[in-house]
């Protein structure tokens, strides 16, 4: 860590090099997919893929919650919208043959965009609400989405399936798609938050009034965070729909949103690598706790409380794994400390 002003910040590798490396990394998932399908136990592979999906969900929520400081408890709602949009369209078109992979990509993006529109609609109330109020309003949004899904049989020609769930969606998602999505999501959000432009997100989190006084359109950045976060949540939903082939509306209730918030907080709000690690640990851990049967969730919730009491700043406490200097502190996320807030 050098202190003098001559030091250049951020990437010392040229951007095109990093971009190439990212492309290679995404492409590398293709042969890796093949190897894993051949060699890896299907159960572990499934857990690994679920890790990938949860990484996308938690990272995108981190942009809203951890980086921009807008406390959202409705992330599963965005995921549901993406899942149902992609799933329903996929079932309707049932693409086969050579074009199937391209169709999947297109429909994933459509699912993401539909969720992003919802993100825009939810983002607008953020002009007025903050902290706990926003949290509870977004929770309400998630429940509204759930109710709409549970009571809708179809929209035009597209099946939704109401409370019975949407079944027999063509299965297309593989390790490759899950991890390509995860890499793109993490890289995009990393770049957004660690660039001059993206500093605005963190400035909004730290102090909205000061940010506005520095010429930052706080409304724009808050809504943008919701839109981008919702987009990636929608993509993750689409991946999930075309991985399992089945969707049940209650998978997207606020328990799922809370699970994602826990990943963000446990990882250390604002720390992208921390949240990635937390998403992996919290997907893997309950699987290892299967041994405890009905005590599993008791242990999970106890572990959660203890974690918060012993290490409230999360695993990485706002630091990044690959960036050995402190980039952000989580101390002010979600509003000020209890009681010092007046």
């Amino acid at each position: 860590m050098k202190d003098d002003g001559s030091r250049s910040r951020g990437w010392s590798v040229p951007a095109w090099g990093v971009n190439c490396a990212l492309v290679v990394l995404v492409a590398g998932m293709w042969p890796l997919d093949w190897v894993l399908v051949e060699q890896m136990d299907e159960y572990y592979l499934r857990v690994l893929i679920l890790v990938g999906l949860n990484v996308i969900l938690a990272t995108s929520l981190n942009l809203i919650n951890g980086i921009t400081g807008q406390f959202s408890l409705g992330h599963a709602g965005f995921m549901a919208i993406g899942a149902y949009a992609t799933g329903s369209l996929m079932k309707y078109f049932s693409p086969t043959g050579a074009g199937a992979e391209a169709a999947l990509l297109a429909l994933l993006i459509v699912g993401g965009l539909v969720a992003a529109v919802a993100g825009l609609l939810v983002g607008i109330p953020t002009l007025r609400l903050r902290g706990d109020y926003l949290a509870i309003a977004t929770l309400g949004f998630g429940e509204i989405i759930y109710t709409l899904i549970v009571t809708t049989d179809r929209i035009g020609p597209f099946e939704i399936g109401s409370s019975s769930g949407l079944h027999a969606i063509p299965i297309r998602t593989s390790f490759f798609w899950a991890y390509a999505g995860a890499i793109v999501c993490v890289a995009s959000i990393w770049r957004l938050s660690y660039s001059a432009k993206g500093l605005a997100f963190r400035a909004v989190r730290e102090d909205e009034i000061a940010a506005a006084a520095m010429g930052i359109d706080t409304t724009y950045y808050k809504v943008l965070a919701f839109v981008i976060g919702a987009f990636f949540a929608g993509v993750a939903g689409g991946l999930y729909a075309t991985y399992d082939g089945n969707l049940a509306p209650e998978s997207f209730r606020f328990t799922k949103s809370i699970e994602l918030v826990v990943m963000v907080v446990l990882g250390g709000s604002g720390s992208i690598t921390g949240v990635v690690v937390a998403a992996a640990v919290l997907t893997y851990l309950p699987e290892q706790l299967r041994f405890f049967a009905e005590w599993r969730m008791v242990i999970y919730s106890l572990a959660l409380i203890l974690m918060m009491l012993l290490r409230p700043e999360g695993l990485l406490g706002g630091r990044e794994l690959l960036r050995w200097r402190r980039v952000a502190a989580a101390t002010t996320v979600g509003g000020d400390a209890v009681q010092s807030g007046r």
Partner: protein
Amino acid sequence: MDYLTQQLINGLSIGATYALIALGYTMVYGVLRLINFAHGEVYMMGAVVAYWIAIGIAPWGWPVWGALAVIFGGAMGACAVLGFAIEFFAYRPLRNKPRLVVLITAIGVSLLLQNLAQTRYVFGPTPEAFPAVIEAKTVVRWTMGGPDNVVTVSNLDLLSLGLSLGLMGVLAWVVLRTRQGLALRAVSYRFDTSSLMGINTNRTISFTFMLGSALAAVAGVVDAIRYDVRPLMGLMPGLKAFVAAVLGGIGSIPGAFVGGLVIGLIETLVKGYLSSAYSDAVAFVVLIVILLVRPSGILGRYEAEKL
């Protein structure tokens, strides 16, 4: 007319328990600026404790009022202790930590209580009907318009409404007329300076949690008697009571009471005149609209940020 009257009675009867739960949310928010997510589970534990007490005293064949007094008293006491323990072990160590962290801890406590209640050692997953301590009876009955247009009020409706009105009165007395109540008001007005004024803030906070939890226990027992006991029963009433607290203006005690009744009425009228499928969603639509139009709620005060 009879239809609307009956629906209004139905709505007030549900709203009365929402109001009791909402009071706890609003008082805790008043002193700590914390959404106590585990509050719905305290309500559930109130029902569970009452269930075990009722099973326990059933063989003795006590008169109704005696049994009810023991059941309500026991549940309130147990929940007050539970509320105290939750605050002491889970929230107090995090007093100066970011709100998000405390909120996550609250969610953790809520999950813990839910999952503990699902184990057979505490209650078990199966809903159980409450032992027949008091039978539902129609106590007021009249006709409007014709002989078939009956409107009924049951003893449970009266119990629910009467208890919440009565407790609201007791609460008003505690808050406005006692030393502890004065401390509570002082802490919720200015946390930092009240401790300089010689108020024991920790004790006041514990008191608030115990008071709120006891009220939630009453709501839990009422709902256990008229519906049943189940480990996840705290979820929706908890959320709706929170909506009620926000609707009434969070931090405002009369607001929470009014908000509870209003949410109960809205829910019932939506079921009665629109579609029952959307009734839960409607509570949240109301919440979002209120937050956008009048974030301070019906009776709340608006706090502008000072630069």
